[in-house]
């Protein structure tokens, strides 16, 4: 049943909309072309940088593999793309690596930097008694609320995350008692149909530091997996740990 108030709403919204007197369309389109082209160029640049990084990593793996074969050892098992490894598997420089038992993780904000991308910003705090070191980024695995794993694709670029952060690289961070670092998980929105609501994420810390579990929702910002695996919305990016909460590329 439609009430009088609702009818009045419909009527007044229509009349208010009719008062809009749009200006000229041409300058809007020209402006969109100018700004849109700049964004496309920047994104392409990031993809090239990322591509070079991947090529270098592949070349490195090939060299390591050849070396391992020559001394009759088994080579490393290729990483399962659905279960990415944390970056920085080397011993943390500058002190003991942080372990999950000494860390707490809290979602502190929805970061909606882009129409097609939503993100959750996390604060990771050291409540242990010792200073420890975090380096690189954790490996994320996503789950729905029944605890079933949800497969997403890790992308090493994000138009609205700096190239260094999105690639998972970063300087080692010494985390004193009671101090915090930040982490950003950004996911593209589904272009077509959303499928499963993602409930939480487990984060495997670098240097065998254990696993942190965190929610993937903040207020009304939520992640969904997409109905089609080829949907660009299946991609997510996860930053390296950062002392700053500002992950946007310089100049944005």
């Amino acid at each position: 049943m439609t009430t009088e108030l609702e009818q009045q709403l419909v009527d007044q919204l229509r009349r208010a909309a009719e008062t809009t007197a749009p200006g000229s369309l041409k300058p809007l389109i020209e402006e969109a072309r100018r700004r849109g082209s700049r964004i496309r160029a920047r994104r392409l640049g990031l993809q090239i940088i990322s591509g070079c990084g991947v090529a270098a990593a592949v070349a490195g793996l090939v060299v390591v593999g050849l070396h391992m074969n020559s001394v009759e050892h088994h080579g490393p098992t290729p990483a399962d793309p659905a279960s990415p490894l944390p970056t920085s598997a080397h011993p943390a420089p500058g002190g003991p690596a942080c372990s999950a038992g000494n860390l707490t993780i809290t979602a502190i904000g929805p970061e909606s930097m882009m129409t097609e991308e939503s993100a959750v910003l996390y604060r990771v705090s050291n409540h242990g008694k010792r200073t420890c070191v975090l380096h690189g980024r954790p490996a994320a695995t996503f789950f729905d609320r029944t605890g079933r794993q949800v497969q997403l694709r890790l992308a090493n670029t994000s138009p609205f995350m700096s190239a260094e952060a999105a690639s998972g690289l970063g300087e080692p961070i010494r985390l004193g008692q009671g101090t915090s670092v930040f982490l950003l998980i950004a996911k593209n929105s589904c272009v077509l149909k959303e499928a499963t609501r993602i409930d939480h994420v487990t984060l495997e810390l670098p240097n065998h530091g254990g696993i942190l579990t965190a929610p993937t929702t903040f207020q009304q910002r939520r992640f969904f997996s997409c109905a089609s695996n080829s949907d660009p919305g299946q991609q997510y990016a996860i930053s390296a740990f950062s002392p700053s909460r500002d992950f946007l590329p310089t100049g944005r």
Partner: protein
Amino acid sequence: MDLRGDADEDFEELVTARWEAWSKLAMLLCGNRADAEDCVQSLLTALYARWPRVRKVEHLDAYARKMLTNLAISGRRRRAMGVTKTALAARGAPVIGSEREIEERLELWQRVRALPPRQRAVIVLRYYEDLSVDQTAAALGCSSGTVKSQTADALRKLGKAMAAEPGAGPQTARSPKGTVNHDHGA
């Protein structure tokens, strides 16, 4: 990094066809002309930046509406698109005197403008765009339950404000009790 030939023409064709509707929706979502222009410009920029992919989307209008709604709610997204009110100031949104008077006479619309952005978006999508609860939830990226509760809250506020307003129309002087809790479902 301009788009080539067909793609660019497709973009211009879509924008020409939908621009007026988007401008009206943006005006309602944002509550004022300056922000509405800001939103439409950001929408066009975002569409252009992703056009090779976006043009293949089946329900492009729903997709654009979702983008526009999100842009209207979040000022940061507009800034991410490099569009600011300052940048738009030079273009100058035309405000026609008689239009302003008409706007001022629409008391309920003035109340809608005063709602928080998400509640205003829910009201506009439900009552102007005539979307179902589920469609509204999809456009806002939230659950159907949230849409229902936001609608109920907004209607309650509007009803209360209109009832308290001296000189409000007789139809709004009474309590909208019973109007706020029913399901606006599809």
